[in-house]
């Protein structure tokens, strides 16, 4: 029952978004191109909570638009990137960060490239150490052939 409701809920929120209204209002952009670029970079790290797998910069959801505005206000007020992201995390949790923080929970995640390489190297090292069956001794016929070849 609850799942049903959750689905209806999700559906209704997501539907208008799926129309891919890929445009934003130019009025919401910051005048200073350097600040605007910074705001965009921050926005790309923040996950839209309605459409979920897009950043708030890409999303056309109403909430994403509001959050874009919030980011721009904070950028204009001269806040650091870290402060703005912390502001978002305080409200929406780590869910909002598309780049997960480095903390005990994500150690394995961030270490995954190194772990994968080390694992691969270990497997190779193990395989190289494997004893290979010694080459088969030559059969009598082969020996004779070899002898002929060497003589000629």
């Amino acid at each position, binding site marked *: 029952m609850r799942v049903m409701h959750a689905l209806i809920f999700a559906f209704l929120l997501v539907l208008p978004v799926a129309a891919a209204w890929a445009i934003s209002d130019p009025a919401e952009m910051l005048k200073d191109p350097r600040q605007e670029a910074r705001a965009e970079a921050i926005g790309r790290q923040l996950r839209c909570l309605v459409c979920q797998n897009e950043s708030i910069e890409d999303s056309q959801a109403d909430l994403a638009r509001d959050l874009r505005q919030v980011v721009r206000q904070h950028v204009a007020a001269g806040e650091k990137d870290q402060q703005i992201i912390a502001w978002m995390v305080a409200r929406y949790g*780590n869910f909002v960060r598309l780049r997960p923080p480095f903390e005990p929970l994500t150690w394995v995640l961030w270490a995954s490239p190194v772990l994968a390489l080390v694992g691969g190297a270990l497997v190779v090292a193990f395989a190289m150490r494997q004893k290979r069956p010694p080459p088969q001794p030559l059969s009598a016929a082969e020996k004779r052939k070899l002898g002929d070849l060497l003589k000629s």
Partner: protein
Amino acid sequence: MIPELGHFALALAVVLAGSQAVLPLWGAERRDPALMASAPPLAIGQFLALALAFGALVWSSVVSDFSVLNVAENSQSLKPLLYKITGAWGDHEGSILLWCLILAICGAAVGIFGGALPAALRARVIGVLGATSAGFVLFSLTVSNPFVRLWPAPMEGRGMNPLLEDPGLAFHPPILYAGYVGFAIPFAFALAALIEGRVDAAWGRWVRPWALAAWAFLTGGIALGSWWSYYVLGWGGYWFWDPVENASLLPWLAGTALLHSAIVVEKREALKIWTVLLAIGTFSLSLCGTFLVRSGILNSVHAFANDPARGVFILVLLALVIGTALGLFAWRAPRLMPTGVFAPLSREGALVVNNILLCAIAAVVFTGTTYPLFAQLLAGAQISVGAPFFNATVLPLAIPLFAAMVVGPMLSWKRAQLAPALLRLWWVALAALLVGLISAWGWAALPALGFAGAAWLVLGAFAPIVERARLFRLPLGASWVRLSGVPLAAWGGVIAHAGLGLTTAGLSGMALAEHRIVAVHPGETVAVGGYDWTLLGLRDAPGPNYTARLAEIRVARDGRTVAILTPGRRSYPLQRTTTTETAIRTNLARDLYAVLGEEHDGTAVLRLHVNPLAPWIWLGALVMALGGGLSLADRRLRIGAPLRRGAAARAASA
């Protein structure tokens, strides 16, 4: 009547698939030639039954038979004919049937083209394919039946998601599935080898063309999907590291590793166990890719109808297929003893490095995609892993991969020396350095690195050929003679590697893209990326099942008109949705890209992009797939010819 015929054909396919699983495997075990010989006709029969079922579904969709639930939910009478046909696989049930059909085609293909395979091996391969097929056709028949009737039949269907009414997306699923499912054949070969307890050079040679064909399709399918999101979604993005995209990338990475390790099996009889594992792993990842994204567990932008009950069925099916395969692997693989002698510094050594790096990238993508799930499951914590993570972790692994891709082919088999190989690459390195330095002039560091990498890959891909032909060291005529002796398979590799270079160039170019969002009155001009964009006017245009609003934009450079773009917006009254129609004009060096947004107070909001080298991303992928196709055309690799020789050798040795 026609849907019932399809329904019946589907049931028949289950029976045939079941027989295809049991009889040949049993026959191979008992060495019964008659039972083993039953494999090809059964596989072809299963294919015919599924083709009939699929034809019935397409027919119902084309004639708009809304008494079929599936058609009523996804079609409408006004839909253009093309989308009525392609709409048959636009939803869950239809796409599963398509998936089964392609798997049956794989079985039939082995039956038809595998005439030169040893009878027992062929029977086992077809048997394994039949067993896999039986499970999925049963899934289609029982919980995902596309032929369920609806009574009373509605007068009009609900229509399909307008975003899917697009030629790119219409043909995306068949090509992508051909890639996913094509890896079932290497998978079946791996299982057959485990059952027989034997992997040799001939096996490597038999597996490779199938893997190559599947890989070429998968490359094309991924590229088509990415291109679709570029021109349909309308914000200039082409890859989002979404779970659905990652799900297609994972088998691609594993499959690429498989292609390369199969070469080592063929040439050196080494890496056997590893290649068998990769063949199992690639298809397993394909299965997870097609099915787990549909279970609704993964949080994706792409909406599938989520149904946990169906999810459990799928999971059980996957457990049976993958669990059996890996169980067999754990049990029988220890028998496959390594034979080839192995020096770390050699062509095969470079291929091992390539495999480690490709699999490491796959491991990172897999970890990143599933980590939020397991964080939730084990720690109850919610985290997100998105594009910034993947970009930061995959790039450092791609750099050594790019290096190995060029250096590896310069090394000789068995034992090689690094220094001479590197020395022979001096001109490639120099060119890459120059390209990097020139593009670093005024641009950001990362695109410059990308352009250098692209130059390194493209030129480096041709280095082995240049070396072989002794170009500029022998008279041109002599070089030409040597060049014509280069086998097609070698050219295929060169072209595929160069294709990745082109894609890299495209990706780097996109990093320099410029865009602006503006609100303009008709007649107004704005400057973006060195072009002057003038909104000429706005008008309405009717369509078959939508109404469109079009903007006409003139793009000019130095006063000369370069292009007239007409981006639009379509509203579909039935589905009550609106889609954007992006206008793109390309000259290969850059894309002019315009999207029409909302209109208010006489102004229209426009999103205007200049995307340098954008088409190269997909062009490069196409070149990669072409390289795969070229390798397939090589006589030595062609499925029939070498097999006969292999079979003859085997018969002689027996």
